[in-house]
């Protein structure tokens, strides 16, 4: 056996994946023949596949975008009833010429009315049109429902979706003209292909379901590894940072909701077409929980994991629990225990789901197949390679900065006031950053420096005054638009995306500069491939600013990196967005003196390239080295501004920093 293992190791990973996927496809294709067309077993597999598509849909919402949706079955219901109502004998408006158009399209036929002698419409929507139609309707409902609620904090969203999941079956039950209420829709049409009806034969359903699973796996993976997926994961990891890095949060959350809903809607069509009936009970809270259990069990965010989770839990119900129950009964008879003989594990399936949820959360939160795979550590050589320090030259950072020191004002802040309740954090602040210069803002803790940055980058909604950037008003714009205009920032308390790689962090920084949409992400045409490659090349160029500190670590999770490196990644992420002005909030905080000076050199080099910098900093040696102009904030007021040396002599500044008595002491010593 070791020979096989070593042989396997010689095959490249991409090839191994291809072989594994190929084997899976072949096994899935011949499964009905393998088990000798045992109809019940094929049927179980078809149902399991339907649940796998639901799990894939929920995984986009919960796993990728991090939005806990407890009412996912509602979209399943919407899809199911869309198709059900348009094929069953439920909705029957009187026949007139208007419907003739639909008749020629094959969507409706006239049938004699049950009561009276007129003709009524019988809708005959094709299954194959029903799939995309229901996907669109469910997605539309997802957007309608999501628009007002997606601004809520994650945990509130959970309870609102729970309520929504409860409301949809209630509406179905009460709106009996359309849905036949609690009795359910009957006579839902089975799919037809070239005139042949699937009827109740499990085999064609099995293949349709498997094709749906394959298609949705493909779409999920393509989306995950694209600009879209990165934006979702950025939102999941840190919403505020995602916004500040150019991700339109509302839009991408809605997109995740819509795509997840579309998957659910399609599955609903398949499910009722297979059962040929639909009742409100098929889509209640237990279904939403079951899909959630599948996602949690398989691995939140893991495409292959949730598929595996869905199959295991579905087959557990239809195959294994049956056998286990029988074994328990045999055991019970053998030992003479009546309790054992009475146990029915299939009835306890929901209890088992509850136990699985709790145990997975307590002991294996990453699920069966974790979304994030353990990474190879850096080799000894890589870790101990001599770090290159100081400024850089000779890098090809085209498109970064390039602004000449024309004296034109890049960022013009006038009368900016921010109040939190009774506290005035900023009081009529005026500040100008000339193009191509480095401006520093200093001040004691709590003087309003970070509030100023938050006001500039649109994180506050109570800003008064005016913030103009190259003449355009920034106040009132959302953070992602401000980034797109060319203002990028770092955060004082690091807001990276910890469970993503260094490269992904820098790629999210470029989000606003890339154009790939959903369809391009899925189809991945040459233009998208080129764009991705260019984005990665650009990220590598930006990493090169920090010598070889980040370059060997591009594939590592941010989580495991040193503090100084994480600070560098924040700067790299901001630079990756090709800003015209870079806002640095205490970039050297927590760095040792050598590292601080190294970073100061690098910032200096960036400025030499023509990048305008606005800097908050405590370390006066860094400020003196870098800044052309210094502004001093105290209790929300600008108390001084000017060249670094002038400001250092300013009395008001000394009072603010050292206190009046200390200032006297300093004067005495001097």
């Amino acid at each position, binding site marked *: 056996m070791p020979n096989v293992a070593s042989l396997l190791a010689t095959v490249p990973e991409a090839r191994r994946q291809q072989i594994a996927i190929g084997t899976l496809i072949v096994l899935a294709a011949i499964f009905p023949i393998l088990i000798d067309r045992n109809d019940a077993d094929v049927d179980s597999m078809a149902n399991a596949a339907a649940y796998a598509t639901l799990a894939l849909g929920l995984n986009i919402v919960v796993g990728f975008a991090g939005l806990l949706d407890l009412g996912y079955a509602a979209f399943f219901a919407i899809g199911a009833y869309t198709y059900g109502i348009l094929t069953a004998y439920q909705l029957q408006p009187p026949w007139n010429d208007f419907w003739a158009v639909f008749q020629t399209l094959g969507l409706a036929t006239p049938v004699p009315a049950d009561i009276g002698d007129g003709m009524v419409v019988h809708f005959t929507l094709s299954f194959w049109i029903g799939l995309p139609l229901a996907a669109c309707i469910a997605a539309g409902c997802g957007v309608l429902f999501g628009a007002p609620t997606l601004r809520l904090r994650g*945990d509130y969203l959970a*309870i609102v979706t729970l*309520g929504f999941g409860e409301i949809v079956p209630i509406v179905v039950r009460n709106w009996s003209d359309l849905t036949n209420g609690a009795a359910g829709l009957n006579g839902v049409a089975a799919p037809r292909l070239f005139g042949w009806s699937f009827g109740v034969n499990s085999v064609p359903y099995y293949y349709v379901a498997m094709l749906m699973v394959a298609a949705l796996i493909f779409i999920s993976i393509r989306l995950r590894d694209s600009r879209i997926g990165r934006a979702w994961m950025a939102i999941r990891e840190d919403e505020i940072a995602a916004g500040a890095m150019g991700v339109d949060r509302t839009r991408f959350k809605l997109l995740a909701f819509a795509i997840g809903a579309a998957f659910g809607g399609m599955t609903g069509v398949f499910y009722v077409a297979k059962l040929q009936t639909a009742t409100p009970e098929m889509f209640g809270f237990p279904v939403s929980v079951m899909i959630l259990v599948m996602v949690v069990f398989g691995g939140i965010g893991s495409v292959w994991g949730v598929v595996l989770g869905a199959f295991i839990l579905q087959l557990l119900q239809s195959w294994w629990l049956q056998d286990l129950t029988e074994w328990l009964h045999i055991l019970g008879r053998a030992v003479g225990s009546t309790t054992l003989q009475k146990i029915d594990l299939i009835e306890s399936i929901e209890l088992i789901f509850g136990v699985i*949820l709790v145990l997975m959360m*307590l002991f294996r939160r990453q699920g069966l197949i974790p979304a994030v795979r353990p990474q190879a550590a850096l080799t000894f050589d890589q870790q101990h390679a001599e770090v290159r320090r100081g400024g850089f030259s000779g890098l090809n950072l085209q498109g970064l900065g390039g602004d000449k020191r024309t004296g034109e004002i890049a960022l013009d802040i006038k009368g900016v006031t921010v109040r939190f309740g009774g506290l005035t954090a900023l009081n009529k602040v005026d500040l100008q950053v000339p193009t191509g210069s480095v401006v520093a803002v200093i001040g004691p803790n709590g003087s309003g420096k970070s509030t100023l940055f938050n006001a500039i980058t649109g994180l506050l909604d109570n800003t008064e005054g005016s913030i103009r950037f190259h003449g355009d008003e920034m106040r009132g714009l959302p953070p992602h638009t401000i980034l797109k205009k060319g203002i990028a920032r770092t955060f004082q308390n690091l807001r990276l995306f910890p469970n993503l790689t260094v490269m992904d962090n820098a790629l999210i920084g470029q989000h606003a500069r890339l154009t790939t949409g959903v369809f391009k992400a899925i189809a991945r045409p040459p233009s998208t491939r080129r764009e991705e490659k260019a984005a990665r090349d650009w990220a590598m160029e930006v990493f090169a600013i920090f010598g070889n500190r980040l370059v060997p670590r591009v594939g590592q999770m941010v989580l495991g990196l040193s503090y100084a490196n994480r600070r560098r990644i924040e700067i790299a992420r901001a630079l990756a967005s090709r800003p015209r002005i870079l806002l640095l909030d205490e970039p050297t905080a927590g760095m040792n003196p050598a590292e601080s000076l190294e970073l100061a050199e690098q910032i200096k080099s960036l400025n030499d390239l023509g990048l305008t910098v606005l800097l908050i900093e405590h370390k006066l040696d860094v400020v003196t080295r870098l800044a052309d102009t210094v502004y001093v904030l105290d209790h929300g007021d600008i108390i001084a501004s000017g060249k670094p040396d002038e400001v250092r002599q300013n009395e008001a500044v000394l009072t603010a920093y050292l206190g009046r008595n200390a200032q006297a002491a300093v004067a005495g010593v001097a």
Partner: protein
Amino acid sequence: MTFADLLLQQTINGLSLGAMYALLALGFTLVYGILELINFSHFNVFMVGSFVGLWVLQQFGLSGQEIVLAGLPLVGVLLAAFVVTMGVSGGIGVAIERLCLRPLRNVKGPAAMITTIGVSYILFNIVLLTVGADSKNYPNPVPAIHYHIGGAVLDLRVILIWIVATILMLGLYFFVQRSRLGKAMRATAQDAEAARMMGVEVDKVIIMAFFLGSALAGAGGMIFGLYYNFTSFLIGFTAGLRAFTAAVLGGIGNVPGAMVGGILIGLIEAMSAQFLATAWTDVIIFSILVLVLVFKPSGLFGRIAPTKS
């Protein structure tokens, strides 16, 4: 009945339901105030409490509505039933915290919330599998004495429900406001880290919040049985969702807010059942939840939500 009578009658009904929702809402608010966690297991602690109360009443030989007590025996039986129910429910709450939630306290993301969903599901199915799916007749030892106010009827048992609920809510309020542990609780809700530095035993505070919240939910479950004369494994979901809406309406994390919110939701339910349609009650209450969350997320009396960094 005239319109005024109907209004009065539904106010009486609404106050009874509201007392129950308020007791349940307090548990959501206590736990959310401290841990910022929506505790879905609370839904079914309420349901289990209702069954514990049923069991205690049966131990006193009560079944159905035929046997009634009066005077001291009535007070004694009800007191014993409430004390045992609240003790057991509180114990379940503490066990949930200790076994399932404490290990996850420092885990980011939805792990703790998903765990509470799992726990809720476990409680739900244990009851379903042991007592069965049919709803159970709830004994009611209170004599059927009715007072007529105009065309409206006020039952003695409704008055007793009000008294019990008022005592429990006032007790909780004064505990939180006046006692040493109550003060520690409020401090922890403001800033757990700072409270810990000041010598507050945060673990003890959290245990206390779970115990009190679950005990009140148990009392609420018993009130459900006494009010409706039945209980079932299903009651937790709807009542829980309504009580959560009540907590949000009053401003989640706010103790008096949860009480007022509960009463309001009870009144809304009674009025909408009378003047609109029972079938749509849940839709109306859910709409309130969404509207409050979207337009006034801090609720009617909410503290200003601290901006979390």
